[in-house]
Each structure stands twice: as structure tokens, then as C-alpha cells.
């Protein structure tokens, strides 16, 4: 019995090690290439070899540095505003009973099926009409709007999983809906909100097309990285160094929010 248990343990460790290695390979390759010049890149990408080209990091930094501040600010505003709006909407959908609730929610969910790229030009026209092109709000407002459907869908599912008795008890103690939202729904949803924070920040961090077209003076990191991507002669070392530098803030975010992320994912809410 003990032997079988040890074998199972060894098998588990082996499987997890192999899986972790497979997941980490792209990161390792990114780091490895970030120290190479073009000749070294064409020879071998899997391990770094001397001479190490640290100047790639200077080129990568030059590409992303002007945009890091913008991106952090936009990500912060979008995350805060978006989650505030979507959690309130989700609370209403999960706790209020009003005529047409299901139909309205279904209409909202249908929007998930429209590929974002199809909306690019109409969105741009809307941004022009709103007068927000070339301002930070051209990014923030549209990102917030764009995130709503998914966030409302996920949060509503999560809120519905919170035992109804908790809300009823609060009601009996005289708590109104605002109080129930603030003191019950939100604190019990920390894990899923953590997941959504990470998803929103990654979304803002990685988006390229919208900042490209709408924000001349307020572009984000992915736009900076596009200066390193070339049609025929990409300097892969500098590009990977840029990717490495651009991913550092996300790594910091993950370090802080990992616990919530794991809890949120394991709670099954985002599979709802």
C-alpha cells in the first residue's frame, strides 16, 4: 500500500514537473533569445550562449519605456471603473427581480458573440463623435464598456452562488441592497474579483489595435513593442528583451493576486 502510494506520488511529481516545464519553455526561450544577436538567434534559440547581448535590453527598454506609465494608469482606471460598474450590474441581475430580467440578460450575453474587431470602425466613429479620440478617455471608456459583458456574466454567476440565506439574514437586520452589495456580495467575491482584475489588466496590457487607432498621444506598451516587430528583419533579441521588460509589471501583479486568482479559478465561477 505504501509502495503504491509512493509510486503515485512520484508519478504526480513527474507529471507536474513535465507540465510545469512545458508551460515555462516559452518564457525560457523568450529569456534565452533576449540575450542573442541575429546570428545567434538563427543558430539556436533554446539556451543563451556568450557573448550575451545586453544591449538588447537597452533597445527593448527604449521601445516600451515611454508607454509603461500610460499603460499602468489606463489599466488602473479601467479595472476600477469597469469592476465597479459590472459588479453593480451583476448584483442587480442576481438579486433584483424585475420584469424582463432574463431577456435583458440574454440580450447582454449575445454581445459576447460579436468579435471585437468587427466593431473597430463603428467604435472609432463613436469615439470621434464623443470627442474622446486622442485622450485617455478614448481608451478608458471603451475598454470599460468592452469589459462589461464578460464581467457581468461572470460576477452574476458568482453572486448567484452565494447562499441566499446570507442576504436574507442581512435584510432582517435592516440592511438595504447597497449594504448587502458592499458587505456581503463584494467581500465574498474577492477571489473572482481578483481573477477579473488580472484578466482586465492583461487585456489592457496586450491590446494593440485600439490604442493604435484612438490614442495618438496615449499609446500603451504593446504599441511600443510594435516598433521592434518588423516585417522581414525583426531583431528578435531586442523584441524578446522588450517582451521581458513589458511582462515584469504583470509578474508583479500576479505575485500579489495569485492567491485570489487560484481561488477564483478553482471555485469554478469562471466556468459558469
Amino acid at each position, binding site marked *: 500500500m505504501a509502495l503504491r502510494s509512493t509510486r503515485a506520488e512520484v508519478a504526480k511529481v513527474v507529471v507536474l514537473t513535465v507540465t510545469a516545464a512545458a508551460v515555462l519553455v516559452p518564457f525560457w526561450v523568450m529569456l534565452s533569445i533576449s540575450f542573442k544577436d*541575429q546570428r545567434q538567434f538563427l*543558430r539556436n534559440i533554446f539556451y543563451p550562449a556568450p557573448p550575451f547581448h545586453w544591449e538588447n535590453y537597452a533597445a527593448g527598454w527604449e521601445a516600451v519605456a515611454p508607454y509603461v506609465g500610460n499603460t499602468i494608469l489606463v489599466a488602473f482606471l479601467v479595472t476600477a471603473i469597469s469592476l465597479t460598474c459590472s459588479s453593480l450590474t451583476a448584483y442587480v441581475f442576481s438579486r433584483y427581480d424585475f420584469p424582463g430580467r432574463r431577456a435583458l440578460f440574454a440580450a447582454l450575453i449575445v454581445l459576447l458573440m460579436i468579435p471585437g474587431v468587427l466593431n*473597430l470602425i463603428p467604435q472609432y466613429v463613436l469615439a*470621434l463623435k464623443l470627442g474622446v479620440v486622442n485622450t485617455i478617455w478614448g481608451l478608458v471608456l471603451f475598454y470599460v464598456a468592452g469589459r462589461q459583458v464578460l464581467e457581468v456574466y461572470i460576477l452574476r454567476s458568482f453572486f448567484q452562488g452565494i447562499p441566499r440565506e446570507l442576504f436574507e439574514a442581512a435584510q432582517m437586520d435592516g440592511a438595504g441592497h447597497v449594504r448587502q452589495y458592499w458587505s456581503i456580495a463584494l467581500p465574498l467575491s474577492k477571489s473572482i474579483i481578483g481573477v477579473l482584475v488580472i484578466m482586465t489588466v492583461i487585456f489592457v496590457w496586450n491590446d494593440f489595435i485600439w490604442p493604435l487607432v484612438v490614442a495618438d*498621444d496615449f499609446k500603451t506598451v504593446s504599441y511600443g513593442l510594435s516598433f521592434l*516587430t518588423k516585417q*522581414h528583419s525583426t531583431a528578435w533579441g531586442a523584441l524578446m528583451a522588450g517582451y521581458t521588460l513589458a511582462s515584469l509589471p504583470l509578474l508583479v501583479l500576479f505575485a500579489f493576486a495569485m492567491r485570489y486568482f487560484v481561488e477564483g479559478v478553482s471555485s469554478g465561477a469562471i466556468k459558469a
Partner: protein
Amino acid sequence: MGSRARIRVGWVVILLPVLLPVSGCSRPEAAEETADATTIVFATHMGEHPGWLDGFAAVIRGYRTRYPEVNIKLHYQPLAGFAIWAETQYLGGRGPDLVGLGVGEAHRLGARQGYLLPLTEYLQEESPYTPGHRWMDSFYPVVWVNVQDPIYGEYWTVPFNFFTLRIFYNAEQFAAAGLTEAPTTWKEFLEAQEQLQEAGFVPFLMPNTSSNSYVFPSIEYLGDMIFQSLTPGLDLLDHNGKVDGIEMNAAIYSGRISLADPEVLAVPQLIREWSRYWIRGFNGLDRGLSKVLFANGIGSMYMDGSWDAEALARSVNFELGVFPMPTVTTESTPYADGPRNDNNYNLSFAVGKIARERGHLDQVIDFFRYLTSPEAADTLTQYVAFISALEDYPVPRELEAFAPATGHPWSGYPWYVAQQSGSSEARARLLALLQTYLAGELSDQGLVEGYQPLYRRLAEEELHYARRENARLVKEVAGRLQQVDALIDSLPPPPADPDGADPVASERRQIQRRRDFTQKSLDKAGRQLAFLDSTLSRPPVWEEITPQPPLEPRGD
């Protein structure tokens, strides 16, 4: 609020003022920020190639020695997302005056979206920087073949340079296999690959994935060397020695050409024969990976463009050779009938209509003419080696191997359904079939039968699309002609000496030139519409009822 919550809010309060000053930074200035009547905005993606931005800046300095009052703002926008960036900028009324665009994008933004200025009329006029010549006459004639809009007949872009495709080879592997010279004919080419294979090398690294196939350029090369004799029978609209998209679609529709014709089938057959020497798994190989393999000595040859020659030479540690696509001769197929013709992959520029709205169109056109002048090319060559699209401009010594073969008749490609509507459906289907065909899993007949239904349907749809657009064009040009006529009528009576220096006479001559040009455009559009009407007045050849032989009387 609890103490932890207060701490978090505190962090936000501290961080925001820190972030606000560092935000708002942006490297390139917005294209339109400084756009006014004295500032020309010139947007390009060529900054990704070393030397080009400095070269363009030097050209601008050269222009400003003539016109110091004119400001020109060079705006570098990376290629990724360039076209969508340009489109949205124009949509917002903020685009660049002069913009680097591919031909397909220019047709879309020019003809369909109306953001670009047709340059056709300007190209007919003399350029002050090439005295005695119309602007367009300074260029290789072949560059205009790709550039002309097949429906509207307009030129939306002016080509600037030539990029050409070549076959790069590992000279050390060639020597090891006993090859002393690069092949010049298709037969020698296949023999060389046989020799390389026998010597244990992978002869050719051919990428053929969905977005990265060099099989299509190969089809174009081979097509030009095989379809020349078909041209007179297909060039029925304007008899200009080339088969344009409408002529090819009409030929498919009317049955003047068919995929099952032996000349047409000869092209994929030659490529299938060649594919015996390609690396295994070529259907999963993309261009980037083929370069990596070549640089590592895995593969003796691979195809790439002059754009990558310099970087490649720096990246390999063996002797590198270059040769053009070998010529197909009758030793390889009885249908070989023409010389090699280099397709042109150009950097080209277009003018936004916004230049007119900003009130400096004439200045923009003048700068554009300067940009494409020999003088500007002299300046630019101090910064970059490039093959100019100007016919008389010398090819730099380091790029001699890439000098384009031009001036031969353009044959047209029966394997492509010319896509005026911008559909890429035919290409995607053809690639999928070719992948199977070249892997040996599809016969000639299977290739034809697999492609033919879509090919026919698209040819028909494209003709109807072209007819609709052409009818619209005829109305539009007729309206323009009326306007010009009204303008001529409104001018004061002609002076005694119509060729004199009187400003009214000069204006009258200029408007008369415009009238002549508009009349020519109308005539051309009218001819095209009549051709389309005539073609579409009959059903497609595949729907024509073939007379059936009379039934034999039954013996019972």
C-alpha cells in the same frame, strides 16, 4: 473604513500623482497634430529598415532648400496595423498627406473608401524634376501593371522602388555536391537539386503554410514563362499586351481559358515535379523557419526577397549565393514560351484627399514628384541601397543580383481569380488544394475538380461586381465632364493668342487638359462597361446547354 482599506486608498492616492506625470508620453507625434497649409505630413512604415528614415529626412532637407517655407513632418508608424491606422486617421479627417501603402490597400482606401486622391491625371503631366517627361514616364513601365486599379483604371499609388524575389543558396553545399555554377534553366535547376540530394543535402526549403507560401510567387514566375502565347486571345478589352483582372475573369466566364487546358495545368505540374526536392513537411514550414533552417545549413536553397538580403548575409557563416528563378525552356515543357519576368513588390506612396482640404495639394504633389525624382534617389542612396523604380536610375552594385527583369509582356495568371472585390476565398482554397496536390495526395484532375466550382463562381461574381462598379464610374465621370464643360463655358472668351502667357489662356489650357483627360477616362470606362455587358449578356460557358446526341431507338 478599516485601517487596511485606508492603506490601500493611500497607495492609490500616492501612486496616481506619480503615474500621471509619466503617462501621456508617446514617442511619435500624432500625424495630424501639426498639419496645416504649410506642413506636409508624410507617413511611412519604412523606419523598420535601417537608413530609410534618415534617408527620407535628407530628401526632405533637399526639398526644403528649394521651398524653405514648407514644413514636412516625417511620421514613422510601424508596419503592424499601419493600414488600419491610416484608415481610421482618414476617417477622422486627420490622416497624412502622403502615405506609404500597398497597392491592394490603396485600391481599397482610394476607390472604395474615397480617402485617397487618384493620381492618374497628375501622372500624365510633366514633372518639374524630370523635364521633358510625363511624371509616369520616368518609371519602368512594368511597375504600372500592378498599380492600376482594374475597375476604375486609376492609379492610386506611385511605386518608389523594386523588391525582387531570388533564390539564395549555400555555395559551400553546392561545391560539395559538385555544382560550380548556379542553374539558369529549369532543367538545370532540377538537375542541381538531384545532385544535391544525392550528396545528402536537403535541396530546397520551400515554405507553404497558409499565410507564408512561396508557392504562389513561384506560380507567377512560371506562369509568365508559359502563358505568353495565351495573352493575345485574352487581352480583348484594351489590347495593351497584358491580361488584367477583368479580362481574365471574362476569359474564365466565356471559356476562353480553362483550368484543364494543358498550358494551364503545366504550371502546377512543374511545381509538383520540383516539390520532390523540397524539405519534408514543407506544408508546415513558414518563411521565418525556412530562413532559420537555411542559416543553420539545413537546406541548400531557399527563396527570399531583396529586402532581407543584407540581414541574411550578416546572419550566416557560409558563402552565400543568389540567383533568379531559372527560365523554363522547352526542355522541360512544350508550353514554355516566354522569358522570366520579375513581379514587382514595391514600396509605393499615395496622396490623401485630406491634402486638398488642407489647401496644400499642389505642394504635396510637387513634393511627391521630388520624392520620386533622380535627385531624391541620389540623396537616398547615400543612406540605403535600393533599386529605384525609375527606369534610368542605376541599380547599386551590391543589389545587382536583384536587378529586376522587366519590360516583358505581362501574361496574367489563369490560376487566380482576379479579385476586384477584395475576396481572398479563391487563394485560400487554392492553397489548401495545392498543399494536398504537392503532397502527392491529389491528381491533376482532382486539383481541377476541387478548385473549379469556386473558381467559376468567383469569376462570375467578380464580373458582376466589376459591372456594377463600372456603371457607377461611368455616371460619376460623365458628371465630372459636365462640370468641367460648365467651367470652360464660364471662362472669359479666349484671347487673340491662345498660346500666349495670358493667365486666362493658361487657366483655359489647364482646364482643357483636364477635360481631355476626363473624356479619355469616360471613353475607357464606357468601353469597359460595354465589354462587361457583352460578356454578361450570355450565360457562363459552364451553364450553356450542350446539345445531346439523339437517343438511340430501343431495340425492344
